[in-house]
């Protein structure tokens, strides 16, 4: 019971501050009343009962899945290579550290120019944002593999494929899942601004659309939905990690 008490108290305090802030702003900016908790709650209820918001959520989640899948497809092999080959690692580490520090959003104009308007540049931005934590965690996992596991595999005259499938990949899965969790966090943050350009569905689009419709209560409701879905995604990634370790 006390496990829930403090988190709930924190959320309640935030809601009170939110109400107070909106009330205080209302005296100078009447439109602020649309941002208030009660107005937001009403808008949220209407959105949840309708089908519009759900369609946008589905588009966004689908983009998360595609972006993550691309990042995994690139990040795991590159990470394994980095972890196994000191030469490759030395050659690429500065490059990767450099590329990692560039905000993916700064590629947006180029991505749109090269890939055209639509889903493709969004996928690119999400994958580009998510590939680094996966790559780096995979590489760390490979270099931290228990040397005895590899000796054991060799003592069983394991083939390369057997070693890869029964020792290396499962041995680095926990690290990959850590990378996935970080990647989901980043993807979720990059997603909304990425969806503000050149697409007409998704939560990022919904935010801009709500602004243009002057539907500020919808906008606030969408922010709550984004936060809540992000929390759920992170929770899912974390429990996946825990389940794998049987801890």
């Amino acid at each position, binding site marked *: 019971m006390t496990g829930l008490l403090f988190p709930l108290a924190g959320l309640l305090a935030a809601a009170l501050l939110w109400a107070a802030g909106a009330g205080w702003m209302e005296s100078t900016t009447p439109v602020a009343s649309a941002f208030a908790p009660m107005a937001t709650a009403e808008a949220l209820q209407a959105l949840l009962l309708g089908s519009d918001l759900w369609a946008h959520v589905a588009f966004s989640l689908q983009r998360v899945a595609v972006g993550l899948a691309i990042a995994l497809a690139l990040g795991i092999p590159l990470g394994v290579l980095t972890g196994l080959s000191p030469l490759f690692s030395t050659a690429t580490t500065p490059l990767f550290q450099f590329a990692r520090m560039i905000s993916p959003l700064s590629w947006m104009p180029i991505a749109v120019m090269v890939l055209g308007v639509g889903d493709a540049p969004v996928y690119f931005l999400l994958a580009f944002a998510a590939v680094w934590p996966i790559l780096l965690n995979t590489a760390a996992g490979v270099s931290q593999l*228990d040397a*005895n*596991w590899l*000796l*054991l*595999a*060799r*003592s*069983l*005259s*394991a*083939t390369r494929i*057997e070693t890869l499938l*029964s*020792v290396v990949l*499962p*041995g680095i*899965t926990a690290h990959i899942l850590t990378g996935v969790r970080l990647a989901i966090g980043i993807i979720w943050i990059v997603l909304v601004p990425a969806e503000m350009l050149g697409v007409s569905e998704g939560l990022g689009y919904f935010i801009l659309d709500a602004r243009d419709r002057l539907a500020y209560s919808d906008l606030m409701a969408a922010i709550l939905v984004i936060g809540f879905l992000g929390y759920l995604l992170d929770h899912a990634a974390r429990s996946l990690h825990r389940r*794998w*370790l*049987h*801890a």
Partner: protein
Amino acid sequence: MNAALAEAVIAGGRPVAAEAVLDARGLSFAHAGAGTVFDGISLSIRRREIVALLGSSGCGKSTLLRVLAGLETPATGEVRFLGQPQAEPHPRSALVFQQPSLLPWLKLADNVGFGLDFAHQPRAGKAALAARVAAAIEAVGLAGREGAYPAQLSGGMAQRAALGRALAREPELLFADEPFSALDAITRAEMQALLVDVVHRWHSAVLLVTHDIDEAILVADRIVLMGGRPGHLVQEWSVDIPRDREDHPDAVAELRLAILAALRHASP
């Protein structure tokens, strides 16, 4: 001509001790750029014999064990396993490490059976392999825990599982590198007794690398002392104290003193 001798003759014309499971001659080994680790080592291990390899830290015991197990190629010399030159680890040899090194994503039974179905392992039916795994788990006293994951086992239980994993291979020779040195004293004593018990039942020979003179005396049929730089075999003792050796403290103490004196001599 008896069968074992015939096997030895067919194996290469060089008469080897008929009952030797492992026969190494003139081994030397060097790490690239790090000098010679050991040199001129010859060692023969008979079937069902427990040999303890004693020596100070860094003298090359683990490296020698890896060469004997076929995990490293010696610079000079040759290792024969059951009379045959050993090019890669023999399916009838098994390893136990200082750490259990269980695979954390596999249940105990899958850990014990790990790799038995690999392509280069002798073909055996599913049922036969399952029976081997069950017998090994039973022998190390973990029956009933087949479904547990390594994270759910205590250190002593995990090391039992690691021993079970080695037994499941029905090894002619078990290579154990300080297998008990990470355990507390009580668990270690239990594991020493268990090791002797199971290898006798499995008819396995053992090469046991250890720092612990008492462990060597309590467990081994023969003790080989390694020392010097580069490492070589300094001296060896047959331990003919009857088991259980705890019941013969005087003989144990006498041998311990002899070994201690030789150790002091070997590493001035």
